[in-house]
C-alpha cells in the first residue's frame, strides 16, 4: 500500500488519483503517525512555504515516526515539489531546519534577464543523471521559485535548465525527490510514478 502524506500542504487528490489510475495499488491518505506503519511506500507532496511545511509535519505529530520509518526501516519515500525541498537541510525561504535526509539547501531563482520569470512555471525537460525513476529526457510540469542544491553530487538524480542548470530530482538509497509535479505531467508523470511504485 502507498501512503500519501496529507499535512495540510495543498491538494493530495491528484497524486492519489494517478496512483489509482495506474492500477493494482492501494493508497492511503496519511494524517496520523500510526498510519505511517500501515504502508510500504510513502509520498510526501506539498505546495506552500518551507517553514509551514516543516511546522505542519511537527504539528501533525508525524516528524519522529517519519524519521524512523525512512531512516531505520528504509521505507521508500518520494518527495514532490515542496516535498523534495523538505528532504534537504534548510532553505533560503525559511528559518526552520528541513528533514536533513539529503545534504544541501534550497535557493531562490534570481535572474537578471527579466524574460526568465519566477516562479518557473510550465513544461520543461528533466535529464537523468541516474536512472532510478526516469531513463530518458522527459517533459514535466514545474511550478516553483526555489531550487535544490546538493552538497554530494551522488545525490543528483535529474537536472533541468532554466536560466541555470538546477537539480530537478534527488536520490539517496530509499529517499527520492522530484521538483516537478508528476501528477500533472500525464504519461511522463505516470511512468515516473510507476517506477517508484515498482521499486
Amino acid at each position: 500500500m502507498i501512503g500519501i502524506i496529507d499535512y495540510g500542504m495543498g491538494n493530495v487528490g491528484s497524486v492519489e488519483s494517478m496512483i489509482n489510475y495506474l492500477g493494482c495499488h492501494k493508497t492511503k491518505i496519511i494524517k496520523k503517525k500510526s498510519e505511517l506503519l500501515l504502508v510500504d511506500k510513502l509520498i510526501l507532496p506539498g505546495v506552500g512555504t518551507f517553514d509551514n511545511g516543516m511546522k505542519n509535519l511537527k504539528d501533525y505529530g508525524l516528524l519522529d515516526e517519519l524519521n524512523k520509518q525512512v531512516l531505520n526501516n528504509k521505507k521508500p519515500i518520494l518527495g514532490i515539489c515542496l516535498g523534495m525541498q523538505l528532504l534537504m537541510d534548510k532553505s533560503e525561504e525559511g528559518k526552520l531546519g528541513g528533514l536533513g535526509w539529503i545534504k544541501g539547501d534550497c535557493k531562490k531563482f534570481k535572474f537578471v534577464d527579466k524574460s526568465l520569470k519566477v516562479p518557473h512555471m510550465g513544461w520543461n525537460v528533466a535529464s537523468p543523471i541516474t536512472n532510478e525513476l526516469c531513463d530518458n529526457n522527459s517533459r514535466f510540469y514545474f511550478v516553483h521559485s526555489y531550487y535544490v542544491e546538493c552538497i554530494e553530487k551522488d545525490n543528483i538524480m535529474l537536472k533541468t535548465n532554466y536560466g541555470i542548470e538546477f537539480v530537478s530530482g534527488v536520490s539517496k538509497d530509499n529517499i527520492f525527490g522530484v521538483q516537478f509535479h508528476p501528477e500533472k505531467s500525464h504519461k511522463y508523470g505516470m511512468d515516473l510514478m510507476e517506477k517508484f511504485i515498482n521499486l
Partner: protein
Amino acid sequence: MLRPRIMPCLLLKDGSLVKTVKFNNPSYVGDAVNAIKIFNGKEVDELLLIDISKKEIPFNDIRKITRECFMPLCYGGSIKTIEDIRTLFQLGIEKVVVNDILFDDPETVRKSVELFGSQSIVASVDVKKNIWGVNKIYRHSTKKTVNLNPVEYIRKLEDLGVGEILLYSVDRDGTWEGMDNDLINEITHKTHLPVISCGGVGKLEDIEDGILNGSSGVAIGSMCVYSKKNMGVLIKFPKQTNIDKIIKNYENL
C-alpha cells in the same frame, strides 16, 4: 524557443459540459469528468475549463475534476475575490482566468498578481465586431460590447500585471470557420504578453494559422467535442504526431 501550446477549451454550465455558438445556445455535450479522463490519455499539455453559468463558482464540480486531471488545469468563471482564487489553487487548479472583475474590481486583480504571481493569472479578452465591423471588447455578463478597442484594453491589462491573455473571438466561437487571424496578428504584435487564441478552429490548418500569426497557444472548443460540424458529440484531440508537424513547420520559419 517555447513550444506553442494547443489545448482543449471546455465549457461548463450547471455541472455539465456544453458548447456554444457565438457565445449563445449552449448545447449539452457530456460529462466533464468523463471528458477529462479521455484527455488524460492524449498528452494534452494544458486544459482550459470555463464555467458559463454566471452563478457561484462550482467548487464541488471542480474538486471532482481536479482529482481526475493529470495535466495543468486553468479555470475561469464567476471569480470575484482573492479568496475565490486561493480556494481554486487549493483544489489543484494551476491558473485562473479572470474576466468580469477586470472591469468591476481591477484592484483585486492587481492584488492577486502580487499574491500568486502573474504566471497564474490569465485575463480573458472577448472580442466582437460591432455593426460597423470594428473590433470591440464584449462583456458576456451584459451581452453587450463596450466602447473599448482590444489594443487599448490590453494596455490596461498589462498595467495590472496579468501573465497571459486569452483572446476569444465571439464571432468565430463554434463556427468551425477558422480563427480571426487579423485580430490575432494585431494583438500579438502589440503586446509582450503570451496570447492564447480561441474561437473558430475547425481543422488542423486553423491551429497552424493561429500559431503563425503569433499565438503562444491555441485553444480548441468544438473540434474537441464534436465529430464534425453539425455532427454528434465525440470527445477527441488532434494526434500528437499532427501537432508535432505543425510545430515543426513553425520552428523552421
